[in-house]
């Protein structure tokens, strides 16, 4: 992994628009009505940068993540990876780029194939391009970096705890020494102590390997631990972005203010329920 051309963004997304068929209103004849998931989203991340993508359900954050990795093709807009446009590229063109853009998934159970051993899972991204002996070593190195002993390579996912499985997900993402990692709600299902372990591990890996990291989360506090910048999504649009320090200390958009005001910090705050929140143009359905 080389660090050159620091002036160019690693990933740049311009005016990304994603509309998907509305499954609830599927029709037998004619086109199914589409529902807009992302409306005109601009996003950029440079080498070694850490950005949090924050939003609640329905904000489009998961979809944005999948667009960034080109698992999904946007309906409109442009997407660039390291200067190369990949908006409409087919999977064959994308294949050589794949080792450089990796993902860690939310659900550690469904992101690990139950029939493969941990070794096979972690080795999958580099299997095609690596000789067998070297493969074992690289898998062992990746496991070690994720703080799992080499003996884990022979076990199966169902034999591991949630935290261990998530570490396997991390090992798989770093085994090919990528430039960019998308972490999609990676600590949502974990208890607070395991969450802290995974977050600290990922932070030190990101620093050591100079990874660009985009973290999708619904929890602002988690974003604070890993990211320098944050982007707030609401109903398919970016309503606010900036450094974490800026956004958390002085949020500008009403939705960001509402989001921050809704976070229960572990301290006594008698006025927490009565603090006025601006509900004007944000009408949540709940």
């Amino acid at each position, binding site marked *: 992994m080389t660090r050159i051309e620091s002036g160019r963004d690693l990933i740049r997304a311009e005016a990304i628009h994603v509309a998907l068929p509305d499954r609830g209103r599927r029709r037998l004849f004619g086109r199914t009505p589409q529902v807009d998931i992302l409306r005109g989203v601009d996003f950029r991340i440079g080498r070694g940068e850490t950005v949090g993508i924050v939003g609640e359900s329905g904000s489009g954050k998961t979809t944005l993540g999948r667009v960034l990795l080109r698992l999904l093709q946007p309906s409109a807009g442009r997407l660039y990876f390291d200067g190369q446009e990949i908006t409409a590229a087919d*999977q064959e063109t994308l294949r050589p780029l794949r080792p450089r853009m990796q993902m860690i*998934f*939310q659900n550690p159970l469904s*992101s690990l194939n139950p029939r493969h051993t941990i070794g096979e899972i972690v080795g999958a991204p580099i299997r095609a391009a690596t000789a067998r002996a070297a493969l074992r070593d690289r898998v062992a190195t990746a496991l070690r970096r994720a703080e799992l002993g080499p003996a*884990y390579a022979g076990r199966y996912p169902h034999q591991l705890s949630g935290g261990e499985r998530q570490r396997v997900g991390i090992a798989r993402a770093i085994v090919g020494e990528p430039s960019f990692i998308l972490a999609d709600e990676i600590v949502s299902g974990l208890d607070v102590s395991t969450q802290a372990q995974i977050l600290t591990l990922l932070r030190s890996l990101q620093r050591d390997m100079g990874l660009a990291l985009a973290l999708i989360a619904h929890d602002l506090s988690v974003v604070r631990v890993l990211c320098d910048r944050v982007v707030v999504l609401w109903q398919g649009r970016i309503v606010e972005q900036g450094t974490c320090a800026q956004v958390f200390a002085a949020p500008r958009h009403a939705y960001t203010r509402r989001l921050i005001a809704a976070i229960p910090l572990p301290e006594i705050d008698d006025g927490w329920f009565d603090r006025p929140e601006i509900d004007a143009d944000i009408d949540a359905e709940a």
Partner: protein
Amino acid sequence: MVESPGATPRRAALLLRRCVGNYRILGGGSVLLLLVLVALFARQIAPQDPLDQDLIAQLQPPTLAAEGDTAHYLGADSLGRDVLSRLIFGTRVALVVAVIAGPLTALVGTGLGLAAGYLGGWVDVVISRAVDIWSSFPPILLSIMLVALLGTGLTSVLIAIVVIDWTRFCRVVRAEALKQRHMDYVDAALVSGLRPRTILAREILPNILPLCIVLLTMEMGIAIVIEAILSFVGLSISTDMPTWGSMIAEGRQVIYQAPWIMTSALAALLVSILALNMLGDGLKAEFDPVLR
């Protein structure tokens, strides 16, 4: 550093050891093995030639019944042929059909099901509509029509079975493939840069395999039944080679005088199908690591 306690021995060896310990596999498997041996060594085992007619011994009851003797352990049919020998030789037809038609149906059905479930789009639409239309035909009627068209004989029977029953596999495999396609580990494989056919083979297929194995054993049982039905109506293989179905047909006509003919053939059918189902059940339990 988290250390994993103890290593895992070779997967294949472990699987084999466990298979032998599972009573379903053991039970079903041994009965099937027995049937295979009977079929292979029919000529040696059968006390008499199945085609040998002995008009003196017409409808002679089995040895253990009142008027039986040791010449015919399970009695004789209306042409004096030894029931036991016919039963033994009937195993051949049943097993040939099971072993050829079963996997063939599985192949066709699984292939189409995987294509429909994984590729989606118009492929899925075409295959799904085909399945729907096909399965709305009454299967027995369809099989009779087919054999009438193709003429009698083993090949026709095999084709008929595949043509009728592939939808069973297709439906189930398609549903499972659809479910698998949406799993995160398929996305993970995409992100890892694997090709679609690699993803299909490495990620999806292994998860579908246990299902296919159970269905296969069930399919083999169904193949035996379909063949029995076809030979019951006289549309199966045209030689004099005895089949359980034709024995049932013959036995039906003399059911009051000689119930043992039909009963023994039915019993043979039942035992084979039960054994196959048990085996399939046991295999499914063993192949599914999550279930353990």
